[in-house]
């Protein structure tokens, strides 16, 4: 009997590995092998399209520490991530709260806020270049109409990154709003009713009832926000090419510049590795700080 059981078990193990094999091959070839290889490259002098490879040791990393532009790029990336994510989530939360009732035209509102997610990043970037155009762009026309000064937006090193941030809020907050809306539906409405009867105002209802109760979802949205924030490469590529004066140059674009424009795979890999560490660090930080304080309602 136990012999038969062992055969069945062995069969099951064999089947399991057979089922995993297709995924594992592609995971290994295009996710894990590149990570290992990227580390290997970072210790060498490698040129794009040149099979020769020269040992450098830690030299690329020392170069990184000395590279003023790298630190600027890292700062830009951090600034973009740390402003875009909170701002889009705040906008998304306010939209979701305003829509969390039986509202006529709900479907129209939802789609109108969500549709930017469906637009290819290259198309979105291009349209916003037009919208931001200093001479004839509608945003400057609107500012002018309101009696505000015109701005140079993407041509001004002070305003270029904020301009991309504004566009990102437009592009993604509708997505976050949808996810938050699903969470708001689960908050029991008698909680609001009780608070209202106790004379709790709308702002503290939001801060003390809504936010704690949907905190698992907020946490989830922050992680999604992080994953989507890499897409800034597309916007930088289409809208500014990192300029003016590298004010919109971010890690992903800097990797591209070094690897493809200067063909220095070794150094580009070194930057890519720091991006990986940056990302894993941020996710770890979010998990440690917010993940612990998250309030789980019931089982979820």
């Amino acid at each position, binding site marked *: 009997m136990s012999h038969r059981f062992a055969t069945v078990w062995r069969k*099951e*193990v064999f089947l*399991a590995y057979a*089922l*995993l094999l*297709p*995924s*594992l*091959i*592609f*995971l290994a070839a*295009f*996710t*894990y*092998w590149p*990570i290992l*290889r*990227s580390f290997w490259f970072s210790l060498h002098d490698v040129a794009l399209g040149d099979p020769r490879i020269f040992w450098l040791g830690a030299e690329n990393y020392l170069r990184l520490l000395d590279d003023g532009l790298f630190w600027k790029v890292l700062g830009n990336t951090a600034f973009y991530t740390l402003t875009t994510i909170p701002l889009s989530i705040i906008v998304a939360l306010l*939209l979701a709260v*305003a829509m969390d009732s039986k*509202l006529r035209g709900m*479907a129209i*509102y939802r*789609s*109108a*806020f969500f*549709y*930017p997610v*469906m*637009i*290819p*990043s*290259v*198309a979105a970037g*291009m*349209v916003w270049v*037009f*919208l931001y155009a200093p001479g004839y762009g*509608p945003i400057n026309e609107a500012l002018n109409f309101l009696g505000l000064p015109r701005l140079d937006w993407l041509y001004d090193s002070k305003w270029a990154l904020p301009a991309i941030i504004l566009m990102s809020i*437009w592009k993604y907050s509708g997505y976050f709003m*949808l*996810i938050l*809306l*699903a969470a708001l539906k689960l908050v029991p409405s008698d909680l609001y009713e009780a608070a209202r009867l106790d004379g709790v105002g709308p702002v503290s209802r939001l801060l003390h009832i809504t936010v704690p109760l949907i905190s698992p979802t907020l946490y*989830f*949205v922050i992680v999604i926000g992080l*994953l989507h924030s*890499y897409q800034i490469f*597309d916007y930088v590529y*289409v809208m500014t090419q990192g300029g003016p004066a590298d004010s919109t140059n971010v890690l992903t674009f800097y*990797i591209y510049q070094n*690897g493809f424009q200067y063909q220095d*795979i070794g150094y580009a*890999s070194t930057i*890519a590795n720091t*991006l*990986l560490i940056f*990302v*894993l660090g941020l*996710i770890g930080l979010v998990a440690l700080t917010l993940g612990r304080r998250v309030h789980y309602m019931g089982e979820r």
Partner: protein
Amino acid sequence: MTDIVRNTQAASTATTASTATTAANTVAAIVPSPFSVVLRWMSRRWQHFILAPLVLLWLSPMIWIVLTSLKTKVEVFDPDAGILPAVLNFANYPATLAVAPFGMYLVNSILVTGSILIAQLVTITLAAYAFARLEFPLKRFLFTLFLLQVMFPIYAIFLTNFVTLRELGLINTLPAMIVPFVASGYGTFMLRQAFRQVPSELSDAARLDGCGHLAILWHVYLPLVQPTLVAFGIISVVTHWNDYMWPLLVTNSDSVRTLPIGLGLLAKSDSGADWTRLMAGTTLVVSPLLLVFVIFQRRFIDSFMHTGVK
């Protein structure tokens, strides 16, 4: 106005729906001052006063794309021309189609997105079943490997992937745009969760009837997790249909380029000056997906609402 009538009717049981007087009379009969009616209506529907202008703001870039695509070049740069095109000028559309092979881009986009979707559905179904229903050594470790893939951005490994594909001689081919995305940690995770919710009595019954694992997977599990498959499919298609960076890096000729790349090239060749043609191109590129979205709105919204990530 009819809104006010309906609301006041709902609020007060005294009025019956059959009151066939004019709207103004009905309002006056219930509440003395029409002004306070408006105020009450406004306070109950305050959301509209915030949301409606915001919706307009959100839609304005899309409206701007379409309006500009119907203008003439002169109008775009003329500050006195106003927002609407003076005459609807459709000539930009044929002009755009004449400068770039958008038909070919469309075919490539469909081939790439379709192949990724089919390949992903196969790999994630098989892997998710193993993780959900089978016991084997290293299960936890392997599952972690799948989950970590979600966190590693393609933007951090595109460089080495490019080198690998070049060594394989796949640069500037359709497979180059497909192979990095065949395995999906996220899809595997989503589907594993769905499989685990299928009651084990069902598969036990099938096994007693003599079904093997694969038959159970095909006849019992897959039909039951269809909503998850659709949700994952929608997210996958939207992501890869719109993808820009990776196809940009691995293609260098029209025969393999996808729609977003074609649009980017159009922008480059026009050097930003010919906005009317560019916006016509944008409308063409954006509309297939937006159209599908408008038709299957609920499906799309549900997919993104309850799942997330790429």
